[in-house]
């Protein structure tokens, strides 16, 4: 199971890298979103996939699954949600004002 998930993470990272390296700002943003999913899966996998019961001391028998990675991922998902929302709005605003979504055109000149 771990191997499968690691392969999935690899594919997601490859897709994200491809998207981030493109010139279109929306693709870059989607790339960062895909990368964040890859990282969340990575945390889950490295923390150990389901190996035991729910960690409720009196309700279930040992061994318990480590609950911490899930707490970490929950926090990270909220953060990735917030920054993705922010940069989408920023990209839209920049598109309205500058009139382009091409990162090459966003390079800018020294004379402004």
């Amino acid at each position, binding site marked *: 199971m771990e191997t499968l998930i690691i392969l999935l993470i690899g594919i997601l990272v490859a897709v994200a890298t491809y998207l981030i390296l493109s010139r279109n700002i929306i693709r870059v943003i989607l790339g*960062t979103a895909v990368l*964040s999913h890859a990282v969340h899966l990575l945390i889950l996998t*490295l923390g150990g996939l389901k190996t035991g019961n729910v960690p409720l001391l009196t309700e279930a028998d040992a061994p318990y699954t480590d609950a911490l990675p899930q707490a970490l991922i929950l926090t990270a998902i909220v*953060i990735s949600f917030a920054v993705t929302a922010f*940069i989408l709005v*920023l990209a839209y605003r920049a598109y309205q004002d500058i009139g382009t979504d091409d990162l090459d055109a966003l390079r800018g000149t020294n004379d402004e």
Partner: protein
Amino acid sequence: MMNNIIVLPLIIPIMVGVILVFLRPYVKTQRVISLVTMLGMAGISLYILNKIQTEGILRLDFGGWEPPFGILFVADSFAMLFVLTANIVTAICLIYAFSSIGESHEKMYFYPFVLFLIAGVNGSFLTGDMFNLFVCFEVMLLASYVLVTLGGKKAQLRESIKYVVINILSSWFFLVALAYLYGALGTLNMAHLSERVAEVGQGPLLTTISIIFLIVFSLKAGLLLFFWLPGSYSVPPTAIAALFGALLTKVGIYALFRTFTLIFYHEPSITHTLIGIMAGVTLVLGCIGAIAYKDVRLIASYNVVIAVGFILVGLAVATQASLEGSIYYVIHDMVAKAMLFLIAGTMIALTGKTKINEISGLIRNYPLFGWMVFVVTCSLAGIPPLSGFVGKVLVGQGAIESGSYILLALAFLSSIVVLYSLLRIFLSSIFGETIISVEDEVPLKKGMIISIVLLAIGTVSLGLGAEFISGYVSDAAHTLFNPSVYIEAVLGGNK
């Protein structure tokens, strides 16, 4: 020692920031409340710093979960010196903002976001947990994204997209590093990590993980990977640029010092050598940038880069003297960089021009301002009795002790370049033929000059009063140099 007071530098700005959101139309009220908050926090930080001297390192376990199980805040002298300086500098930048930022910014939540920014900065300095460090970084970064785009000029939008994308990427790399670290060691508490790394030995795997952390924090600190820095630090309004220049890279520097003195200090021949090389290259590239440009804001931004290189030389050689020197230098640099950015912004505000060869003779129109430029030049070049001197001497001493002569040479050559790049501003823009006639003279606003003078007083008194803060600094360096002190304070049980 458990103490609730150390959470205040995080809680107060967030609470006050939330309240200020509701006071949006009342600009004057917002000003007063935000300034009082920052001054109050400076007072609290000073109180905590003194408490640490008598009672030892303080910590707070949130929710009563004892380390290493819960998240905790740890306040040692190193963290508190950073917090104290950051709060004072922010208060002074706020005074500058009152007279320069403009009502449109003030009504668009400028003050709340400054407070959220400082909350993230303080949290990053105080936390004792790696994942919590990530969260505090994000609090700080999200506030900084807003501040860098606030105003929405074309150049701002253009540069901020790059700034935001590069920071999001480095945040996800931070998470990758955290995932590996948790997978390898099964803990995220910094003291516990340090203990476990010491137990199992820092093998190739852990060293690789440490290098991912090095890359992430270098991106934040502008160590070698500073390509995003000059652009994004030169577009926002002056007060915001000064806050960024003074504080944001310092958080990355803090994280580098914490990780590579507390956790990954077993393989200095790999990690610290790498830091040394990166610091050396940063110094060279920063110097080239500082000399190459004529735009005052870009010169100031490249001076930030040079300072980062210099401070990291202290970490690369890692003797007690050099660590002490780096701490002195960080404190000095927060004050002096804020001053440099405020001065650069004021020059542009007064003349409407950004290139130093288009500005000339400001000292005739604004004598006091002209002398302030001279003070900041001397201070950043490290001329005694100003504040840069002590740090430079101690870092130099450390470099000699460990025999890193190349880094020593680069570090001190960079000081000469700093002196040259700033004297160039001084000679061409402050001295020379005056270009502003008496009728066209834009009055220099009181708030602007007051904040610059306050920072000048800061840098002079830090230099003259080095004796006074030496106790705190040597305690901070002692903790950094002996990780066991920190570990004992966190994991040693409730005494």
